[in-house]
């Protein structure tokens, strides 16, 4: 499983998909977040490996 952390929420998705596919499966528009690993941006085309953990940062600000 792949772990995606977004603020207090933790999502798990099956490995083997691209990040974009995983986000769409979760109902998240891919361009509204940035995925981060070890302080670096992870592209939407990346296929996270089983057990991989990524942080999702919302890029849409309010107000």
């Amino acid at each position, binding site marked *: 499983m792949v772990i995606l952390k977004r603020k207090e929420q933790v999502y798990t998705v099956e490995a083997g998909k691209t990040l974009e596919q995983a986000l769409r499966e979760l109902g998240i528009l891919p361009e509204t977040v940035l995925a981060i690993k070890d302080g670096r941006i992870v592209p939407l085309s990346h296929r996270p490996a089983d057990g991989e953990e990524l942080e999702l940062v919302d890029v849409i600000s309010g*107000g």
Partner: protein
Amino acid sequence: MKCSVCGREAVIKLRHAGLRLCPEHLVARVEKEVAGAIRRFRMLAPQERVLVAVSGGKDSLALWHILVELGYRAEGLYIDLGIAGYSARSREASQVFARERGFTLHVVSLEKELGATLDGLTRLARGKTCSLCGTVKRYLMNKFAWEGGYQALATGHNLDDEAATLLGNVLRWDEGYLARQYPALPGEGKLVKKIKPLVFLSEREMAAYCLIKGIRYLYEDCPHAQGARSIALKGVLNELEDRYPATKISFLRGFLKVRDRFRPPEPVVLQDCPGCGMPTAADGPCRFCRLKGRVSHGAAA
């Protein structure tokens, strides 16, 4: 995925621009777009002093950083609105950013200037929090810029902000607002020139820029923004953008071509407020002074 410029590993795909970029070329694109907007809309001359309104968020901090990188004389202004918890954290983010870079940050307290925090004002005055916040921030930013002798006031409004504002104005066919929506509004009397150098850059690009450049910004949104109309408008535009890439940039660029057709319903005549001397379209005290009066009246009651 390879960078469209250098062929190295790309980290971001910008569908609206038809680009895949590595960190180095994402940074280069953002800075080039800012320089381009400044030139195209004649926002700043090299010797002019610019005051950047900072909130601790990604856009305003990145804007300040870029303006200094481009060689402009930019200082920051943080307005402490006194929003419980949130203001302390956003002020801290702004102060840390400025301190780490040796930038000059000015802090103005709404409570000191008005006699009430935004939370207190919302309780006392009739009106929506976001509208009151806009009124007091616009007033204080302009007053500080005018009194400090700055030639321009820069805000971090980005493509997503501007497209959402435009959609909101179009849905109401608000000709007055449409006539005034522009990346650079010239100064007039005591009204300082207002500029939005990030106008053609998406939120996604700005967030990526901050991460790459190590700009630590506050991820948190203002608690009053929850349920705000602007968020709903951004949501609609993001759905459209997902299906039809470049919707936002086309919408905004197309508007800028026809904006001249919109005129305010009546020409706005500015006069000095009898209370504070700052410009106002009102007959009598400006809105800030009226709010101040209501606060002191409410506090005395």
